């Protein structure tokens, strides 16, 4: 129990003392998660829209597959990405192994199904009258997508926040693809795993608090998007 208290104190210390390792991990985490969120939102929102808006044959099967992809274990994603970007893999020449870019690719694969699945089910809930109204006002395809997504913005926020939570806290990909290299690819989560592995539970808790604080800051800055 006492390591919880110690962790609290340590968290403050780490941040105040500007601990170099911690700050480098914070930066890595922020860079990687921002990048993967942008990519997965950019691809997942339109994909989810298409899946939720249109009726087509095999839609239900596709949704089931997508839901299944929500259960991709991070280590498996890590292995998959590793297979491609390892020096002998088909993308080996880009030297992405043990880089933040590599992690970001893996996290995008992780977040994409989440964004897409939640977006699709939010878009599915759109009032059919809205579609009719947009068509009747002369909206083109692009207008329809953007307006529909804007109409359900609170639902999409949930998609984004959930995906962000998954990306921010995943360890498997960062570990496998990034390699947990100090000052380079060590993210907060891999650092937590390391400290915990060393038995330094207080340090693990401290870093966990740091991570949660980041999430809190991000969510506060998103909360102005919320419905009052």
């Amino acid at each position, binding site marked *: 129990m006492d390591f919880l208290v110690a962790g609290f104190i340590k968290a403050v210390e780490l941040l105040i003392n500007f601990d170099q390792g911690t700050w480098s991990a914070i930066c890595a985490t922020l860079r990687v998660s921002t990048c993967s969120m942008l990519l997965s939102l950019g691809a997942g929102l339109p994909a989810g829209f298409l899946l939720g808006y249109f009726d087509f044959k095999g839609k239900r099967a596709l949704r089931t597959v997508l839901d299944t992809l929500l259960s991709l274990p991070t280590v498996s994603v890590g292995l998959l990405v590793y297979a491609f970007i390892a020096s002998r893999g088909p993308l080996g020449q880009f030297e992405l192994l043990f880089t933040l870019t590599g992690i970001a690719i893996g996290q995008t694969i992780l977040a994409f199904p989440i964004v897409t699945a939640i977006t699709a089910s939010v878009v599915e809930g759109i009032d059919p009258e*809205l579609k009719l109204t947009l068509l*009747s006002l002369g909206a*083109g395809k692009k*207008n329809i997508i953007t*307006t529909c997504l804007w109409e359900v913005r609170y639902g999409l926020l949930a998609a984004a926040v959930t995906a962000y939570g998954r990306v921010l806290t995943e360890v498997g990909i960062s570990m496998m693809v990034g390699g947990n290299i100090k000052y380079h690819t060590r993210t907060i989560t891999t650092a937590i795993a390391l400290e915990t592995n060393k038995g330094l539970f207080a340090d693990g808790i401290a870093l966990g608090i740091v991570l949660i604080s980041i999430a809190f800051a991000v969510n506060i800055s998103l909360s102005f998007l919320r419905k009052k």
Partner: protein
Amino acid sequence: MSEISYKLNHIQHYYGDKKVLDIDGLQICRGSITGLTGPNGSGKSTLLKIMAFALKPTHGQVWLNGRKEFVLSPRVRSKVTLLTQKPYLLKRSVFDNIAYGLKIRKDMGDIENRVKDALKSVGLAHGDFARRQWHELSGGEAQRVAMAARLVLQPEVLLLDEPVASVDTKSAEQIRKASLAARKNWGCTLIIASHDLPWLYECSDTRISIFQGQIFSTGTENIIPPPYDLSQKNHPVKWLGQNEKSEHIHLAPGKKNNKFAIIQKEKIHIRLEKEKANGWENQITGQITSMVMEKNAELIMTTIQAKDFFIDISLSPDQAENLKLLPGKKIILMFSSRDIEWR
């Protein structure tokens, strides 16, 4: 003015297996105002959605200005506008709702004033309403905001699905005026579905009635709706009243599948008392429920109820005065079964 705006060819629409629309042909002239009437579920909204290119009919084509057009066709987008039956307001302010259509057309000049005018034309004060959010409106106000959002676009064709359903008398009058102004100012073609027949009769210059997906044009016809009693094959009968088998209409023989009994309005005569042995099989007792001024006070639309059968007849003021017709008065509807057609 007699240029053709719409042409519908063999339009059929199915929801699942159920056929809800079956129109052989229909033409709408440019600049006309067409009233669309018919009981609930007859297919008015479906027809309007198809004409707005917001719904692809199961079979058949729709021509606009001589061209076959399709859903999402870019040519159609800025020309045809539909006010849906349950107007949906976007989750933004009233102003943004009305400006939305202009914005997607990238037509932003003088937007403030155009929105203001549109609001005014449906009887809403700009100052009071423009900044309100979509949910801060009463039912009729929301309806009118949706109408304003269509008017502001000044479309070539304006399809209105029950534009005055929950709108007060004064505002309905304003919407009528706005519709007429649309025709006058930019030659707008209007098709208006409504159950408020007096209002619609005042608005429109031609009428189409629709019944179980079939069109009966010109408004000069009355439909004697099913069920028909075919127990004597050659003399089908329409019973009036829900349960008792007392008064009835003799129909013409020769009913075929899916056909309805139709009678021209002019073939129905009004008497104050029954006449004996005059060769007219049908002498039905009815009561005048309402009399409403038609366009320009030239005619009076008179609604007569005989049990559960309603019939609308246009009378001249002279006719009405001669017979001293007034709402509440009991009269006799007289017509021959030979004048009933199966269509």
